[in-house]
C-alpha cells in the first residue's frame, strides 16, 4: 500500500513540476521538425486574456464606397483620347477637393471616369457624391476645352451607402478571419452606417525582427531599447546579427485633431534608434495584431469554379478556374421556392457573368461516365457551397436549393454571397491601444482581493479540518497550478466568463475535498483506525463527487455545443474553463488529496488522531444514530 502511494505521489510531483514549469515561462516555443507548438500570452503567468481582462488594439475601419462613375459622350466630329479628358478634368476636380482615379474609353467618343467619393484628408472620411454644381462645372470644362457633348454628363453609379446587411456581412467576415488567425475573442461591431469597430485583445503579441549588417552585441540592442523603457525586453533569439524582440503594446503614431501625425509610431522610432547602433539590413514588425490587420485589409473574395468530379460522390475532384467572380454576381437573396415553398438562395448574374454561367451549366448538366460535375463556390478560399446543375441556365438567374436549407441558412448564404459580390474594401481610419473594458485598476484590485479570499479559505480549512484541511489546502494549490497550466497549454483565452467558470471549478474542488474530509471525520468518529477511515472516506465520498461532476460535465457539453453553434462566445468560454477545471479537480481529488493524506500516515502525525477531527464543540454535529422514533 505504501508503495502504491509512493508511485502516486511521484506522479503527482512530476505533474506539478511540469505545471509550474509551464506557468513560469511566459511563452513556450517547441519546434521539432514539422511540429510547431507555440503557446503563451500576455496575461499573468503567460495566460491568454480576453479583451475584457487586458487591453488590446482598437481599430476603426471605414467602408470605402465605390467611386462615382461619370459618363461623358462627345458629339460627332470630336476627336479626343482618354488622356485629354483626364488632363482637363484633373485641375477642376482638385479645385473641388477631389481626385481622379481613371478615365477609360468605353465606346465611340464615350468615356467613363472614376472619381472617388471620399474627400481626402477628412478625419472621419467625409463622403460626398459628385453632383449638382460640381458636376455642372466639370461638364462645362469638358465642353469648353474639348467639344460639345451629345448628352449631359451623368453619374452612373458609385458612392452608395453600404446596406446594413452588407456591413454585417463584412463584420462577420472580419471576425471569422481574425478568429482563424488565432487572435481570439475579438469584439467586432458595426459603427454608424459605414464603419466597423474592431477590438483585438493582446497587443503584446507583437515582435520586432531586426537584422543587422554585421554582428551586434545584445547589450547594445538593449541599450538602444532602454530609452523606450524596453531595456528589459525579452530577446529570445541570440544569433549574432539577428534579433527577435518581444515588444508588447507598441505605441502607434500620435495624431492631432486633424489627423496629422504629431509623434511617429514607436516602431519607427525604435527602428531609428537601432539604426544608430549599427546599420540595419531588415526591420519588420510581426505578430498577432499586425498580421490580423493585414488580413482584415483584404476584401471579401467570391469565386465560382468548375469542379470536375472524378467519382460519383465527388470526393476526388479538380477545380477549374472559369473567371467567374463576385463582381459578376448582380444579386443574391434568400427566397422560397414557388411550388415547394422550401427555402432557396436566388442568384442573378450580370450579362457577362450570365454568359459564363450559362456555358458552365450547359457543360455540367450532362454527366460524363455517369458522374455529374459541380459548381464550387468559394468565399475567401473557403468552400461555401458546391451544388450540381440540373439543367443549362442561360438567363443568368438561378436558385440553389439544398435538403438542409433553413430560412436562416439561406439568409446567411445570401449575405455571404452579397458581401463577396460587392467587395467592400475597408481602410483603417483609426488605430490605437485600448485599455481593458474592465479597467486596469479593477483588475489589479481584483487580483489582490482574490489572493486574500484564497488565503481566507485556506485558513478556514486549516482551522476547521486541521490536518485534513492542510492536506486539502495543499491539494488545492496543486490543483490550481495544474488547471492554470492546462488553460495555458490548451490554449484557452480567459475572458471574465472563463474566470467565472474557473472560480466555480475551484469551489467544486474545495467541495470535493470537504466531502472527503467530512466522510473521513465521520469514520474516525465511528472509531475506525486512521488508515481505514481515510480509505472509507474516499470510497464513500467518491459517488457523490462523481455524480455531481458528471452532471456538471453534461451542462458544460450542452452549453459548449449551443454556444459554438449559435455564436455565443461568452457561454463557450465559460463552458470550456468549467469543464477543464472540473476534470482537473476530479483528478486532483482522486490522486492528489489521497496521496497527501496517505502521506500523512507515514509521518508522526498519524498518532495524533485528535488533530484529524474538526474542532470539537461545533454546533453542527450529525447525530450518531438516526432517530427511529418517527410516529
Amino acid at each position: 500500500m505504501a508503495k502504491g502511494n509512493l508511485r502516486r505521489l511521484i506522479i503527482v510531483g512530476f505533474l506539478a513540476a511540469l505545471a509550474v514549469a509551464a506557468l513560469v515561462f511566459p511563452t513556450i516555443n517547441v519546434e521539432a521538425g514539422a511540429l510547431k507548438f507555440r503557446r503563451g500570452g500576455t496575461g499573468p503567468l503567460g495566460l491568454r486574456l480576453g479583451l475584457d481582462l487586458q487591453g488590446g488594439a482598437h481599430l476603426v475601419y471605414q467602408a470605402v464606397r465605390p467611386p462615382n462613375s461619370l459618363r461623358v459622350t462627345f458629339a460627332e466630329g470630336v476627336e479626343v483620347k482618354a488622356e485629354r479628358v483626364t488632363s482637363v478634368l484633373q485641375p477642376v476636380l482638385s479645385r473641388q477637393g477631389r481626385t481622379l482615379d481613371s478615365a477609360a474609353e468605353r465606346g465611340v467618343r464615350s468615356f467613363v471616369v472614376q472619381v472617388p467619393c471620399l474627400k481626402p484628408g477628412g478625419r472621419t472620411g467625409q463622403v460626398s457624391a459628385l453632383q449638382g454644381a460640381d458636376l455642372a462645372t466639370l461638364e462645362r470644362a469638358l465642353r469648353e476645352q474639348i467639344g460639345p457633348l451629345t448628352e449631359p454628363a451623368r453619374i452612373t453609379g458609385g458612392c452608395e451607402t453600404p446596406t446594413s446587411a452588407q456591413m454585417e456581412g463584412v463584420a462577420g467576415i472580419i471576425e471569422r478571419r481574425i478568429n482563424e488567425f488565432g487572435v481570439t475573442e475579438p469584439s467586432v461591431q458595426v459603427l454608424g452606417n459605414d464603419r466597423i469597430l474592431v477590438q483585438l485583445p493582446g497587443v503584446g503579441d507583437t515582435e520586432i525582427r531586426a537584422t543587422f549588417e554585421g554582428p551586434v552585441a545584445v547589450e547594445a540592442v538593449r541599450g538602444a531599447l532602454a530609452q523606450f523603457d524596453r531595456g528589459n525586453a525579452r530577446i529570445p533569439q541570440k544569433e549574432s546579427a539577428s534579433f527577435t524582440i518581444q515588444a508588447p503594446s507598441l505605441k502607434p503614431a500620435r495624431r492631432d485633431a486633424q489627423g496629422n501625425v504629431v509623434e511617429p509610431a514607436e516602431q519607427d522610432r525604435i527602428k531609428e534608434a537601432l539604426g544608430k547602433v549599427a546599420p540595419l539590413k531588415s526591420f519588420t514588425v510581426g505578430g498577432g495584431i499586425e498580421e490580423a490587420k493585414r488580413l482584415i485589409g483584404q476584401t471579401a473574395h467570391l469565386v465560382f469554379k468548375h469542379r470536375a468530379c472524378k467519382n460519383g460522390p465527388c470526393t476526388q475532384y479538380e477545380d477549374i478556374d472559369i473567371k467567374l467572380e463576385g463582381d459578376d454576381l448582380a444579386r443574391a437573396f434568400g427566397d422560397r421556392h414557388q411550388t415547394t415553398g422550401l427555402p432557396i438562395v436566388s442568384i442573378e448574374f450580370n450579362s457577362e457573368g450570365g454568359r459564363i454561367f450559362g456555358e458552365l451549366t450547359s457543360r455540367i448538366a450532362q454527366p460524363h461516365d455517369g458522374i455529374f460535375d459541380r459548381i464550387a463556390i468559394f468565399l475567401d478560399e473557403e468552400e461555401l457551397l458546391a451544388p450540381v446543375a440540373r439543367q443549362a441556365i442561360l438567363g443568368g438567374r438561378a436558385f440553389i436549393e439544398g435538403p438542409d436549407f433553413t430560412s436562416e441558412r439561406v439568409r446567411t448564404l445570401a449575405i455571404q454571397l452579397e458581401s463577396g459580390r460587392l467587395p467592400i474594401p475597408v481602410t483603417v481610419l483609426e488605430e490605437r491601444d485600448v485599455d481593458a473594458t474592465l479597467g486596469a485598476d479593477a483588475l489589479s484590485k481584483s487580483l489582490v482581493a482574490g489572493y486574500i479570499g484564497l488565503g481566507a479559505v485556506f485558513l478556514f480549512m486549516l482551522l476547521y479540518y486541521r490536518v485534513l484541511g492542510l492536506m486539502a489546502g495543499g491539494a488545492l494549490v496543486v490543483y490550481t497550478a495544474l488547471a492554470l497550466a492546462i488553460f495555458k497549454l490548451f490554449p484557452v483565452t480567459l475572458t471574465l466568463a472563463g474566470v467565472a467558470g474557473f472560480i466555480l471549478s475551484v469551489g467544486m474542488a474545495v467541495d470535493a475535498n470537504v466531502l472527503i474530509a467530512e466522510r473521513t471525520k465521520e469514520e474516525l468518529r465511528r472509531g475506525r483506525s486512521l488508515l481505514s477511515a481515510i480509505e472509507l472516506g474516499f470510497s464513500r465520498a467518491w459517488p457523490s463527487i462523481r455524480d455531481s461532476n458528471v452532471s456538471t460535465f453534461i451542462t458544460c457539453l450542452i452549453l459548449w455545443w449551443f454556444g459554438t453553434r449559435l455564436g455565443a462566445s461568452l457561454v463557450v468560454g465559460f463552458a470550456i474553463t468549467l469543464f477543464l477545471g472540473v476534470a482537473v479537480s476530479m483528478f486532483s481529488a482522486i490522486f492528489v488529496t489521497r496521496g497527501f493524506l496517505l502521506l500523512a500516515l507515514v509521518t508522526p502525525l498519524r498518532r495524533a488522531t485528535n488533530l484529524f477531527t474538526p474542532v470539537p464543540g461545533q454546533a453542527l454535529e450529525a447525530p450518531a444514530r438516526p432517530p427511529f422514533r418517527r410516529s
Partner: protein
Amino acid sequence: MDFVSKRWWFLGFSFAVIMAGIISMLVPPGFRIGIEFTGGSALTVTFEKPVGQEQLRKTLTDLGYGEAVIQGLGESTFLIRTRTLEEATPGVAAGQSARERLESGLRALAPISNSDLAAVSPVVARETVRNAIIAVLVASVVILFYITWAFRAVPNSIRMGSTAVIAVLHDVLVTLGLFSILGKFINIEINVMFITGILTVLGYSVHDTIVVFDRIRENTARRVARDLESTINFSIMETLGRSLNTSITTLMAIVALLILGGPTLQSLLLTFLIGLITGTYSSICIAAQLLVVWQRGEWLRPFRWRRAPAASPAPPA
C-alpha cells in the same frame, strides 16, 4: 432541527420571494438592461489635459451614466459606450440634446478638444440570449435524465431528477427576481456578466443538490430509517456540515472580491453571491422536501390549507 417537517415554511418562503420577483419583473422597467444587448452610442472624447479614469467614472455616474463602459485610449482620450445619446435635432431645443448635456457635464473635468459620436450596434444579439436560455433548458432536461439513471437505486428516482431541476430553476428565478428588485433601487443591470453568473448558479446548484441526494441514496440503501421522511431528514443533517462549509469558504472569496475589487465586477459577483446562497438554501431546504411532498402526494395541500389543516398528519415537532 427538523428540516422536513418545516418544509411548508421553506416552500412558502421561496414562493413569496419568487412572487415578489415576478411582480417586480412585470412592473416596468422589468430589468435594467446593459448596453451590450441594446446597443447604444460610442462617444470618443479627447480632453485638453490628462484626466483620470476614476474621476471620469465619478462624473459620468453623477450625470446619470454610471453604467457606461469606459476605455482609455491614451492619457486624454476615452471611449465611452453608453445608451443611445440623442444629438441635436430640430425638435429639441438647442444645447439641450442628451449629447450636449453630457459633454457640458464632462467639461467640468477639463476642456474638450474633440468629440466624436457614433451609434453602436448591440454586441450581444437578442438571439444569443434566447439561445442561452434554450441551452439552459436543454441542459436541465439532460440532467434530469442523468440523475434519474444515476440514482436508480432509489425507488422512483425520476422524482430526484425532477426535484433537482426544480431546485435549479428555483435558484435562477430567485436570482432574476432579486436582480429585478435591486435594479429599481441601485444601479445594477442585466448584462453579459449577469448571464455568466446565472450559468455559474446553474452549475453550483446542481452540484450542491446532488451531494445531498447522494447521501439520501446511501442512507436509503443502508435502511437507516423506516420511512422516507426520516431518511431524508437524517441525510440532510449529515450533509449540513459539508454544505455550509463549502458555502462559507466560497462566500469568503466572493465577499473579499466584492469589497476590495473594482466596481465593474459587481454585477457578476452579486449574481454569484445570490446564487450561492439560494443554491445552498435550495439544496438543504427545498429539493429534498419536494421529494417528501411528492411521495405523500401533498402537492395540493397549500390549496387545502384553509379548509382542513387537521386532516393531514402533523409530524411531532
